[in-house]
């Protein structure tokens, strides 16, 4: 069997996901045995266009990004979104829910009208995405799992339960015990509760659980002394495109 040709493309992002792959030191050489990397701008100079699997990082935030992603989608048989920016828009999307005029003014001052900008979008907002490796940064162990699933013809699965499940399994002390509001209860697991395990509240970088109970989450966070405006900010930090805190939800 010939090695599948894979390509990595990065859009608007911090490139942490690129680095995350390079941080797979122990497995890097094994991976190179299994796939043929034809395009990976950060690490290699070759630029092949005959890839089968395209890994996309970063959110789409300029008209040029949109053009480029369509082109990639036409070529790729399988398209995988890597990391929060590509998966859900991520941190780049914070500005989407802000007053766009104000955003531009902060940046351009009086020249703000010169620069029309488009909202930061997840890849799936523009083209069909086959699979995801969520997270900011994406977890390279999960990337490895997804890659190995693709290579063995499996559908890579990502958890649909909450970060608390993994956090409890690790027997961490819950941050709520210390009065710290954590997004773990409503965030999709898969990172092994990376942040709470290190004593930091989860900020929801893997996206929200599929059946979000927004009102319950809001009530709990309010009890833990976050103001309503800060609760919104928390939700919008990574998940702007996927939750609207302006409206109430009924079951």
């Amino acid at each position, binding site marked *: 069997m010939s090695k599948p040709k894979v390509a990595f493309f990065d859009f608007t992002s*911090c490139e942490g996901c690129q680095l995350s792959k*390079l941080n797979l*030191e*122990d497995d890097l050489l094994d991976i190179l045995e299994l796939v043929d990397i034809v395009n990976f701008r950060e690490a290699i100079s070759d630029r092949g266009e005959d890839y089968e699997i395209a890994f996309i990082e970063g959110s789409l935030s300029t008209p040029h990004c949109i053009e480029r992603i369509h082109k990639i989608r036409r070529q790729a048989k399988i398209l995988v979104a890597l990391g929060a920016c590509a998966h859900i828009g991520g*941190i780049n999307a914070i500005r989407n829910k802000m007053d766009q005029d104000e*955003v531009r003014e902060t*940046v351009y001052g009086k020249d703000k009208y010169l620069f029309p900008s488009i909202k930061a979008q997840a890849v799936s907002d523009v083209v069909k995405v086959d699979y995801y490796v969520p997270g900011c940064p994406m977890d390279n162990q999960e990337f490895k799992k997804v890659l190995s699933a693709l290579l063995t013809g499996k559908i890579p699965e990502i958890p649909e339960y909450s970060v608390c499940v993994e956090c409890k399994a690790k027997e961490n002390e819950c941050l709520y015990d210390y009065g710290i509001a954590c997004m773990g209860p409503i965030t999709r697991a898969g990172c092994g509760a*990376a942040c709470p395990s290190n004593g930091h509240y989860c900020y929801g970088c893997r996206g929200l659980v599929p059946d979000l109970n927004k009102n319950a989450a809001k009530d709990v966070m309010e009890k833990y002394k976050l103001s309503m405006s*800060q609760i919104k900010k928390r939700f919008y930090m990574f998940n702007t495109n996927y939750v609207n805190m302006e409206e109430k939800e009924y079951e």
Partner: protein
Amino acid sequence: MNNLSIRVPYVTRVEGHGNIVVDLKEGKLVKSVLEIVEPPRYFEAMMKGYLYTDAAVISSRICGICAVGHQMTSVKATEAALGIPVTEQTVLLRKLLVYGATMQSHILHIFFLAAPDLFNAPSVIPLAKTHPETVKMALRMKRLSNDICDLIGGRTIHPNRVVPGGFTKLPTEKELLWIKDKLENQMVPNAKASFELLKSLADKFPAFQRETEYIGLKTDSEYAFYDGDISSTDAGIIPVEKYREVTNEFVVPHSTAKHARHKRSSYAVGALARLNNNYDKLNPLAKEVADALGMKPIVKNPYLNTVAQLVETIHVTEESLKLIDKLLTDGIKAEKPIQPEKLREGTGVGCTEVPRGILFHEYTYDNRGQIVKANCIIPTNQNAQNIDDDMKELVPWMIDNGMNKEQMTLALEMLVRAYDPCISCSVHFLDVEFKE
């Protein structure tokens, strides 16, 4: 050579998107720039309204490669603004984290981004076949530096233990001992081997030189990374709070990243700039290596930034060992992050040497601990004009040295890579419209 046009779209093996554009018409250089075409990021606007506890979480995402540096600078700015003290142990651990991050970034750059040029390879992948031992060694060194970041910062990319006032979780003494053992028995010998390797390849770096101003942090006690004053090879010492007098950011039409200038038309930051300012504070082995590689200040060849990175890698290895000894002698104390006594309005500047150079964050907070204003000045912005200025002299120099177009293109790419530019960082703030 009278007419020449060089275009390198999306320079590879650098972090972020940049194009090299060189146009020579009738013997006259009409254009020689690094176009920075990374999409805009808008961080300063996005941070507005966020709580002081969130500032480092967000600003870390300016750059995944320099995440440790951004977090460090961010928490320092917040601490300065809100008057949050930190303990000695916190400072020691933060330094250790900064050193781990410096090692990992430098190793990545030296072996994975820069070395392929020295071996005439398009990437590290073929090197894995032709020079397996070297690649494996580099992977081991990188793994170890990542492990340091993991054990101190929680993870390497976007660490999750660094908060204003301290760390949310501390390494154990056992973990520190493990790091110590690995640094002594693995990193030091591997770094020495890397030195031999680089020495044997030294003639592959173009012998180009250009005078410029070198800016970096400086302190009396050590080779400055975590703390200090701004130091310039042209102008001496400037306090960090006055950073705007140094950076003077300005806009150029070919770049989504702002440029900067101080005393001259441009200045340089990064490993070479630090070395030029801190040479006398190098640890013994690092100094030995620096001398053997001819890295005595002031080194004016920009290509040697890569060599300066190796010197620094060795220096921070030695420095980390000292830190660990101190931490182990004192014993790890179970400290929780220090909370601000009372939220108050305030402005603070944080400054750290990150692998690519000096980094500034400045925040203004309201009395509820929410960000009113943020400003981040990134090393690559500060280097951008210097790269353009280098290119302007490099092109005629290359023509004089009888290089062909192919050689010239490679030398230009190598120049850009030598700066180890971090382009996604540099466009955290959009200045001009994205252009093809």
